[in-house]
């Protein structure tokens, strides 16, 4: 009788150990591009420009019509007729729209000058440390020419030269 109870208790223990050990090693492992950790970055993936919210993955038709006519636009088809990429150029940013089938989504946003800031108040020309203090150190990759924050397929990349930001890009990489 006691033997069976002992058996029950030790199984309870094993079960407890197994289930709570689950939570620690729940971390995703980085892709092969040297992305070390991918904690939840506190960075957001949209920009406000001319009081229009432009977000990665958003429906492009609404955004483009809200922004009014672009300075210039260029669209190029993929080989094999699989979708087209269109670049819309505005005064201080460029938007790349990927259209495949019936859906058109914002695939990439490039900030050209410091007239536009990221929600974390960083802009072209800011210093590298300003980026880190504003966006935190949850970056997925850091080299001397770039800092990248990643969440799923959305990325925010700061291109650097001699410690200052020369380019800011929001990219989608599926």
């Amino acid at each position, binding site marked *: 009788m006691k033997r069976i109870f002992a058996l029950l208790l030790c199984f309870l223990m094993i079960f407890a150990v197994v289930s709570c050990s689950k939570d620690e090693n729940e971390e995703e492992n980085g892709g092969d591009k040297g992305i070390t950790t991918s904690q939840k970055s506190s960075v957001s993936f949209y920009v406000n420009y001319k009081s229009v919210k432009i977000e990665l993955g958003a429906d492009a038709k609404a955004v483009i019509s809200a922004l009014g006519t672009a300075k210039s636009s260029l669209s*190029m*088809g993929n*080989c*094999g007729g*699989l979708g087209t990429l269109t670049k819309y150029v505005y005064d201080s940013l460029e938007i790349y729209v990927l259209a495949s089938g019936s859906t058109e989504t914002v695939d990439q946003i*490039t900030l050209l000058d410091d007239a536009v800031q990221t929600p974390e108040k960083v802009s072209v020309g800011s210093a590298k440390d300003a980026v880190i203090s504003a966006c935190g150190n949850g970056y997925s990759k850091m080299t001397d020419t770039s800092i990248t924050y990643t969440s799923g397929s959305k990325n925010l990349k700061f291109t650097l030269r001699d410690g200052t930001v020369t380019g800011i890009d929001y*990219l989608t990489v599926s």
Partner: protein
Amino acid sequence: MKKRILITLAAILVICLLLAFLQTLVIPKYADDKTKEGSLVSEYYAEAGGHDVLFVGDCEIYESFVPAVLWEKYGISSYVRGSPQQLVWQSYYLLEEMLEYETPNAVVFNVFSLKYGEPQSEPYNRMTLDGMRWSSSKIDAINASMTDEESFIEYVFPILRFHSRITQLTSQDFKYAFGSPKVSHSGYLMQTGVDPQTDFSKGRTELDYEISDNAWKYLDMMRALCEENGIELILVKAPTNTMKYWWHDEYEEQISEYAEENRLSYYNFIPLAGEIGIDWSTDTYDKGAHLNVYGAEKLTEYFGRILSEDFGIEDRRTDASLSEAWDVRLESYYKERNG
């Protein structure tokens, strides 16, 4: 009892035949203008053998080099085994397959696809791999290319993948059920349209310019394969450079460094466009993303001289059987070009 087994076998046979027929209906025919690139890979088998130069690579290879011009001007017999967004491991396995049929003197590989280190897109995989005949190379190519949503059995039985097209069949699906029309000239996909390139600004920033280990691995395998068979491996980058397909400096550095280290010749035609005489207002059909037939002929003529003088590819126009075969191909080439 025997009667029952007979009926079962007959029934299974009928079902298989029906499914086989339905499969020919639903698989994409790649016959209309926008998707004809899907037929390129399968057209090689009709002309397999007798080539001194083989080209492998993505859309930049099959829109830039014209085998007909190489033969006409330099007597070089060549074939372009390109396909849309052909990834480096697909190029390797296609080359491996072609070496079962022939051994060329030189293989030309367009390096643009090295920026992709992982499987990219299911439709492109299908366009490249479905055209291949079943071989160990094809099996390896499939396993190396499959994205998460794909499974091997859908390559063995394409009806499992394309069955949803049953409700979107067009007259082409019935017309070409038993064979799609020929779309290329020895692998070159002729484009006679003209749509000038006006935007020469720098292409869009990319997340990461570092070429991945997986891409290097297959480039090394290709180099080893060529060395093994005494073939000269030539790396090229087509002269086209646009917002959508921009050849970033970081890529150029890594490739030229690789070429030096391994004593491979590497020609980046972007800076040479002027010397080749390419005029971006007449020589492209899609705003500079790819050359049209006029641009491709200029580039091929330029590259033909390099092949014959620097690499000693012989002039084979004296070979009767070869020139006879090429006369036929030249005729159909000019028919479409000037037609």
